[in-house]
């Protein structure tokens, strides 16, 4: 966490003259210097970092250079939107991916399996922002039934959720499929079948539970990736979430917001990795001792 904050901080400082960027390229040298002083950008970088980190620890990320609010208020406003979107997209892809992956695993290399895998490979190759624009063209412009930009109503979330779901579906489906294939081959499945349990009960109760383990573990990490990659999609759909905030702030050289954003996204990632480990251990008793 600390390392992320340091690296994020240094990268931002090292990659250009912030004061110059804030003032604009055509501004006078005196103005640039005045800004440098006003924001404390003339101090050594270690001092700048320690000052920022100390305040950040107390929940104070400083003030935005553009918005009247505190950075923490801004992030608190925008974060739920991004989290919701990520959760919706992931949820949709799990609801679709689990049954399809299971079906595909029942007959490996069967027709359904091949069709599904082919579709998945296609889906993986689509850039998400392009898919977003295609959906906008079709549902927003040609059919005119869904709003294309903004985040005011639930209808605004349909298209972005669809894009996210399609983007994560390949991973979920593949993992479910390979997990199921492994599970169905295992000894305990043969035992369950030998006991005379119905096929549905064998598949759902015995095989799926084991196949789920890697899926759940990856799902948490995927959520992190979705949230981290929210910049692009939120820009396409004009959703007022964390990613869009980051994008706006980058373009305004609003560095307190950008720094806080990097830190929050890093924290979310660490948290989700931890959650994934815990879930893994909960689901798989074999891992608990380690």
């Amino acid at each position, binding site marked *: 966490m600390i390392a992320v904050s340091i690296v994020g901080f240094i990268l931002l400082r090292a990659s*250009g003259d912030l004061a110059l960027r804030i003032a604009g390229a055509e501004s006078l040298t005196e103005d640039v210097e005045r800004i440098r002083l006003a924001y404390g950008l003339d101090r050594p970088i270690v001092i700048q970092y320690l000052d920022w980190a100390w305040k950040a620890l107390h929940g104070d990320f400083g003030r935005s250079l553009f918005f009247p609010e505190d950075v923490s208020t801004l992030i608190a406003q925008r974060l739920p939107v991004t989290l919701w979107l990520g959760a919706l997209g992931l949820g949709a892809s799990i609801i679709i991916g689990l049954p399809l992956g299971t079906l595909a695993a029942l007959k490996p290399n069967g027709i359904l399996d091949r069709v599904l895998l082919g579709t998945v*490979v296609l889906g993986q*190759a689509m850039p998400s922002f392009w898919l977003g624009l*295609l959906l906008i063209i079709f549902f927003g412009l040609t059919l005119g039934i869904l709003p294309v930009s903004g985040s005011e109503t639930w209808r605004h979330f349909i298209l972005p959720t669809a894009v996210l779901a399609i983007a994560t579906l390949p991973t979920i489906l593949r993992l479910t499929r390979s997990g199921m294939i492994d599970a169905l081959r295992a000894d305990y499945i043969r035992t369950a079948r030998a006991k005379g349990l119905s096929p549905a009960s064998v598949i759902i109760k015995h095989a799926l539970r084991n196949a789920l383990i890697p899926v759940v573990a990856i799902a948490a990490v995927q959520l992190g990736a979705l949230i981290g990659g929210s910049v692009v999609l939120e820009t396409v759909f004009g959703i007022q979430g964390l990613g869009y905030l980051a994008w706006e702030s980058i373009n305004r050289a609003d560095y307190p917001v950008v720094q806080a954003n990097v830190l929050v996204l890093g924290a979310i*990632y660490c948290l989700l990795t931890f959650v994934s480990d815990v879930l893994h251990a909960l689901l798989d008793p074999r891992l608990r001792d380690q």
Partner: protein
Amino acid sequence: MTVEKVEVEPIELLGAETARDTARRWLSNSGIVIGGGLFFLVVLSALIGPYLLPHNAFDQSLIARLRPPMWSGGTAEYPLGTDHLGRDYLARLLWGGRLSLMIGFLTILLAGTIGTTLGVVAGFYGGRIDFVVRFLIMVRLALPAVLIALAIAFLAGPSLKLLVLMLGLLLWDRFAVVSRAMTLQLRNREFVTAARAVGCSDFTMIRRDILPNILNYLIIIATVEMANAVLIASALSFLGLGVQPPLPDWGLMIAEGKEYILFSPYLITLPGLAMMVLVLSVNLLGDGIRDVTDPEAKGR
């Protein structure tokens, strides 16, 4: 009485495989054939395509603005129409292919070098070095890559060079993770111990015993990361902080076409389609190579 000539089958060692068998096994994999074929087509058209067209990718023509592609009433002069500045869209698409391929290759070269070096060294020596590398991987994974890349590109001024450099410095994690794990496994195998016993230097052991054995995995990761690099690069260009105009990157072309989304949707669909074909071919190729070299993992 005639003696029939008996054909003697050549005895094959169990597990030995002739070059012909290998070729047959590779060519019977649909991923390799389709993916490799598509990839070859993309490379070929990107390399020589621009020379075969009447217009180049940069010539603007105000009278030929936004000409539609052939299937919706265009002429053969501009098979895929023109963009908002009257530039031949096919030529730009092909040129964009060059850019994407270049970005992809340079990125995996850089990322692969960084990641493999870190991973192999960490796996080979273990201990404190391993700890440091694991820590670096953790930090890298926790950094929101796209966001950082955007911020750096904004502050440093976006350019093609910077884009490749950033992607290379951001996408090495998978190389490192896998080469570390593989090296850990290989380190204690007999042939490495034997090499150590006859007094090979660490460098020789890594070069002759470790690297050749993990090469397959590295190539598979390289395909994944190349697809990844192309997608991220186009996303950055789409947001205006990657490849800069007038260069025709596919992501940038989509961004430029966004304003004409209502009447000239081909400006958006075509570059995306091109990108999809490239990424798809690379992914298929990678999957195919994995299936052939590591049959255990088939279909994952």
